[in-house]
């Protein structure tokens, strides 16, 4: 019933509507969910969007094996259950998984290192799609390469499925610090800097001029408490993804709501303190330093 003939002069799939969609998520929390029931809990708690998955990263980590795009039927059922945007993940470089997600009408594709990469060299050409993409990064060069490929939103990577925020902090600080340094560089250094970090020159120039990336930047990976979310916001990201941290905890609904409130009121410690009371057990978590190099997901992406 929502089908409508696009008018001749109505332009869909433009850079503005792709990036604009992420701008509307700012200051919000995007939550991983594996069932329509969890999606409903996330929406009730005030999530700005959900990430529809078969397994949260903590389970992908413990199950091992190849992690692929989720069953489109599951994603569709989650889309039918909630009115907020629904995102879904495809493997790095797996453009057919991305095509499937576009075909079922997912609102955003996360080309994600949490799944097993499908291409060891190339990411998806995201300009080819009408739906927007979010991609992970560990530094400014990686972020600007993804934007060059058409990503309409960036998330600084943490170490997904650990409940340890240390990597999310490291990568957000790296990216934001590199932008601050870029702003102080004289113009003649920009081409060499672009070459050194492997980023498109034009986007380097644009980032310097804006004092920020030209797309929205969320933090992700290892965020498990309201305080974690508020810290990432104070460091300077635009919003947060919470994966395993909610539905691997004792009282998901309450924790989800507390993280939403702490993200909005991230600079008001009295409010963060209040919402952090009596949340029940957090997810157990894995200390990132205990992971073997081959167990780390954040290093995936080229």
């Amino acid at each position, binding site marked *: 019933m929502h089908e409508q003939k696009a008018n001749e002069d109505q332009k869909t799939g433009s850079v503005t509507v792709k990036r604009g969609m992420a701008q*509307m998520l700012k200051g919000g929390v995007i939550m991983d969910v594996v069932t329509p029931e969890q999606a409903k809990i996330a929406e009730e708690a005030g999530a700005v969007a959900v990430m529809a998955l078969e397994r949260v990263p903590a389970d992908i980590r413990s199950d091992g094996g190849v992690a692929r795009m989720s069953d489109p039927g599951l994603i569709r059922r989650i889309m039918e259950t909630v009115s907020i945007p629904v995102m879904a993940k495809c493997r790095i470089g797996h453009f057919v998984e991305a095509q499937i997600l576009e075909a079922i009408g997912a*609102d955003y594709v996360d080309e994600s290192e949490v799944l097993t990469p499908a291409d060891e060299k190339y990411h998806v050409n995201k300009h080819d799609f009408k739906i927007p993409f979010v991609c992970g990064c560990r530094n400014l060069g990686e972020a600007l390469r993804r934007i060059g490929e058409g990503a309409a939103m960036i998330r600084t990577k943490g170490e997904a499925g650990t409940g340890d925020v240390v990597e999310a902090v490291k990568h957000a600080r790296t990216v934001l610090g590199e932008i601050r340094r870029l702003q102080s560089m004289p113009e003649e250094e920009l081409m060499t800097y672009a070459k050194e970090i492997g980023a498109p020159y034009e986007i380097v120039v644009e980032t310097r001029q804006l004092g920020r990336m030209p797309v929205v930047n969320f933090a992700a990976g290892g965020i498990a408490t309201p305080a974690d979310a508020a810290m990432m916001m104070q460091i300077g990201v635009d919003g947060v993804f919470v994966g395993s941290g909610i539905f691997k905890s004792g009282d998901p609904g309450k924790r989800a709501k507390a993280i939403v409130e702490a993200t*909005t009121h991230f600079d008001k410690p009295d409010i963060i303190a209040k919402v952090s009371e009596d949340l029940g057990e957090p997810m157990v978590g894995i200390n990132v330093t205990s992971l073997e190099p081959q167990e780390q997901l954040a290093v995936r992406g080229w």
Partner: protein
Amino acid sequence: MELKKIGVLSIQGSVVEHVQILRRIGGVEASKVYLPEDLEGLDGLIIPGGESTTIGKLAVIYDLLEPIKSFAKTKPVLGTCAGMVLMAAELHQDRQDQPLLGVMDIVVERNAFGRQVNSFETELDFNGLENGLSVPFHAVFIRAPKIVRIGSNVRVLARLPDGTAVAAIENKLMVTSFHPELTSDLRIHRYFVNLAG
């Protein structure tokens, strides 16, 4: 000339975009509204784009609904996209349980154009804007709502070619389905600021 104080509801969404546009208009002091006390002394309020369910729920938790309703009785309020949903008297069909301000006599349908893949940009003739009929307004619609019914005191300011109402005004309350904060055209914000006495 005294500065006009315009606040932007800062729960979530395109807050900074609105603040930046307001700062480009002369004679305006822009501020963010997180809690009810931040409404004090304002001459106008903008409710930005974002997720209307999130903004509505947090507005309830932080006791913002009633103060904004009283504010809207005498002062101008502009709602863009999610802001329009929140200002509506009623939502069409589903989601009747979503918290609303209900200050404007319109019925709104959420996500009425479809999902993100159907989000679009277009040129709009806009009644009453400076050069509104000779220079169209470039409008960005993102998972946008539609106005499906209007009360007798509501005036439609812009329509799509198929007749769908996408901007309207009732006294000093103004709404747009689209995001004027995503373009560099200041005319809608100027129009709104002029309503603030």
